[in-house]
């Protein structure tokens, strides 16, 4: 490995790459990041350790305890590979330092090597979180000798190499032969959505696994799972098999040879990556900042016709907000997608949670009881309130303007119209999310259609109320000083405040439903009355104070 590769690796690490703290300029975000690492990661590790421990017990019963090692390596490799795809794409192609590196007298393989090593450093965190509990639990419980731990150290060092190389090859080929590198936004949106779905999938699988944990079922699962996991390890990451064999057989020469084979092949794969990098990296990365323009002349007349059509300021402003929400990856993931993820999560947890089956049964039972329809109706409205409160669209709508807020001050559109457009854009997304939830709820709980329709007909008032409250929150406490869109939505406390407020409002609605068990008609009328009055009051407040506040905001 050349000195320049190591020099570059050191510089990249010092520059903050590797742990995602690049761009965190203030100390608070660094501290928060560190806290997250110190709290969330250990939490996951502890949970995983418990899982490994009980799996070990169950597996010993059938004499297959070695499977935990193969699981550990398989899980670590899979997670590294998946994270690696996003990480490599971000680091190799979308990072701002890439252009600076291009004009330095560096060979492509040196850049690829250094960036790879920096990425690997980050992946060791994941490896440690997954592999160490396995090694320690297996080691202690099987009373393994010192050689096992030494071998484990060697395996630990090489675990990220092959999965990360595969991820890098995938990304480099993709960037070389498609124009994905020039479609950063599209790539981020697709990758982010996939990651969300993947995260959700893993979450649910683990949830299901832990809930279903009883010895017989576990055994059945393992018999089935061992095959799939073995396939996974030997199929996608063939080298992992040697690592497993080495760790399970530390006393014979075969074990040692397996370990050497594992290390040698991993190193060879890394060298192959460097050769590939030398061939394709530059071609994919050069011209990254070039303009992407299709220069599509066919649509010219169509665009012209659209331009000639006149629309109201409210409509055009609302459409602008929605376009920006859909086109900015961070906003899309945090404001648009969450509308659809939260409801799904909520429903799945309700159905799959430990008492989930009972809830579902109870709801079905309740629905047959006409006296309870009012309560169900109020639950539906509360759910709408949660959906509105848990997406950050309206509660960040002023913050998202950032340095561009000045534009909204010189255009001849009244602040009231602008505020309404911002509320409306969030409200439209919330309604879409709510309709989606309602369809799911109707299917899962077999809600009678008339109740679903009535919830929709009255529930929007809860959403509108939360949207009005959200915009007031953001008008009084906007986060306008940001340099990356991420900060406008992800590090914005207004989103948290909105969640708290919507939880209180929704919670009170549920409380009222349970406390008074109103009849259906009474529930409909009282909710229309209460939410109606609340909406009028907060709208009046917004019209007066909100508009004044917008006028005083100076970006």
């Amino acid at each position, binding site marked *: 490995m050349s000195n320049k590769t190591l020099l570059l690796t050191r510089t990249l690490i010092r520059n903050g790459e590797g742990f995602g703290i690049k761009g965190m300029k203030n100390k608070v975000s660094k501290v928060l990041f560190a806290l997250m690492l110190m709290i969330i990661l250990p939490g996951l590790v502890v949970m995983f350790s418990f899982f490994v421990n009980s799996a070990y017990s169950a597996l010993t019963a059938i004499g297959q305890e070695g499977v935990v090692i193969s699981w550990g390596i398989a899980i670590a490799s899979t997670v590294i590979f998946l994270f690696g795809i996003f990480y490599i794409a971000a680091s190799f192609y979308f990072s701002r330092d890439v252009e600076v590196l291009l004009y330095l007298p560096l060979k492509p393989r040196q850049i690829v090597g250094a960036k790879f090593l920096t990425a690997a450093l980050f992946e060791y965190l994941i490896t440690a979180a997954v592999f160490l509990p396995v090694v320690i639990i297996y080691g202690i419980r099987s009373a393994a000798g010192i050689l096992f731990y030494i071998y484990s150290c060697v395996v630990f060092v090489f675990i990220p190499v092959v999965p990360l190389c595969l991820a890098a090859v995938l990304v480099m080929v993709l960037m070389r032969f498609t124009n994905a590198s020039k479609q950063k936004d599209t790539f981020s949106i697709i990758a982010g959505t996939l990651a969300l779905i993947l995260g959700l999938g893993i979450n649910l699988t683990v949830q299901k696994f832990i809930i279903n944990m009883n010895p017989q079922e576990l055994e059945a699962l393992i018999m089935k799972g061992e095959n799939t996991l073995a396939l996974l390890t030997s199929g996608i990451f063939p080298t992992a098999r040697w690592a497993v064999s080495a760790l399970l057989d530390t006393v014979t020469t075969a074990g040692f040879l397996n370990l050497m084979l594992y290390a040698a092949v991993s190193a060879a794969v890394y060298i192959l990556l460097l050769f590939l990098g030398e061939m394709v990296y530059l071609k994919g990365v050069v011209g990254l900042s070039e303009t992407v323009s299709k*220069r599509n002349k066919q649509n010219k007349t169509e665009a012209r016709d659209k*331009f*000639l059509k006149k629309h109201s300021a409210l409509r055009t402003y609302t459409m602008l907000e929605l376009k920006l929400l859909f086109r900015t990856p961070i906003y899309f993931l945090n404001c648009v997608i969450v509308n659809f993820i939260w409801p799904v999560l909520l429903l799945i947890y309700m159905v799959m949670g430990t008492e989930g089956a009972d809830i579902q049964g109870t709801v079905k039972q309740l629905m047959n009881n006409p006296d309870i329809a009012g309560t169900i109706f109020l639950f539906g409205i509360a759910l709408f309130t949660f959906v509105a409160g848990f997406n950050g669209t309206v509660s960040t709508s002023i913050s998202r303007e950032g340095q561009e807020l000045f534009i909204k*001050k010189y255009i001849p559109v009244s602040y009231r119209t602008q505020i309404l457009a911002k509320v409306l854009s969030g409200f439209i997304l919330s309604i879409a999310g709510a309709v989606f939830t309602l369809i799911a709820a109707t299917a899962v709980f077999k809600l009678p259609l008339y109740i679903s329709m009535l919830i929709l007909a009255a529930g929007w008032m809860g959403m509108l109320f939360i949207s009005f409250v959200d915009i007031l929150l953001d008008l009084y406490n906007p986060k306008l000083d940001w340099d990356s869109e991420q900060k406008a939505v992800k590090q914005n406390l207004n989103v948290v405040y909105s969640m708290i407020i919507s939880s209180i409002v929704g919670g009170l609605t549920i409380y009222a439903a349970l406390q008074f068990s109103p009849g259906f008609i009474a529930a409909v009328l009282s909710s229309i009355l209460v939410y109606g009055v609340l909406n009028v009051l907060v709208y009046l407040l917004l019209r007066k104070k909100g508009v004044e506040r917008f006028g005083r905001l100076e970006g």
Partner: protein
Amino acid sequence: MIELIGVSKTYGGTVKAVDNIDLTIPDGEIFGFLGPNGAGKTTTIKMITGILNADSGTIKVNGIDIKTGPIEAKRQIGFVPDSPNMFLRLKGIEYLRFMADVYDVSPKDRAQVIDDLVKNFGMEDVLNDRIQSYSHGMRQKIVLIGSLLHDPSVWILDEPMTGLDPRSSFFLKEMMRKRADSGKTVFFSTHVLDVAEKICDKVAIINKGRILFCGTLDEMRNSSKKDETLEKLFLELTENE
């Protein structure tokens, strides 16, 4: 016409960015607003356009007070901010559509803009691309076009020449002249004194929030009694401060 009477603006309670200025920018003239960095040019422009609220004083655009009739006053103005890096995720045509709707431009006038302005700035082939993919000069052009969609009677430009290629720069200067000659107000800030010297009918020089000079270039030369370039006069004026 733009009128500023006793206008002041203080940032953070201590930094006086604009200090009790009086300024009248008449119709039918190109009016250059000059001053060193941090002199108060952009703050003044932001107060005229309604982006910032003045702490005291009155600002009128065509006789309409920006404080009491903000929407009507803003309708009079076409504004080109100093940085064209905005709405980067919109396509050029989408940005123009937004501005046209916001300024209530009729379909007939829109057609003229497409046929006239867009063509003259050489932007017809890129209107369907995202502004993100534009060069600095192209971004500047799309903002310039957006500012003229409603044929404003007052055109305010903050450092408009930055990043423009020679042809567009020439076209812009020509347009400024044409608008002034047709009786409209053209008010622009600049650092480039050569440009100001060539095209301005009148200039105002601001430093440390106060107007040091306001009048024609000849008046400036007469007052200093030296036949010097604007650059030298500018340096002398701002140096003595």
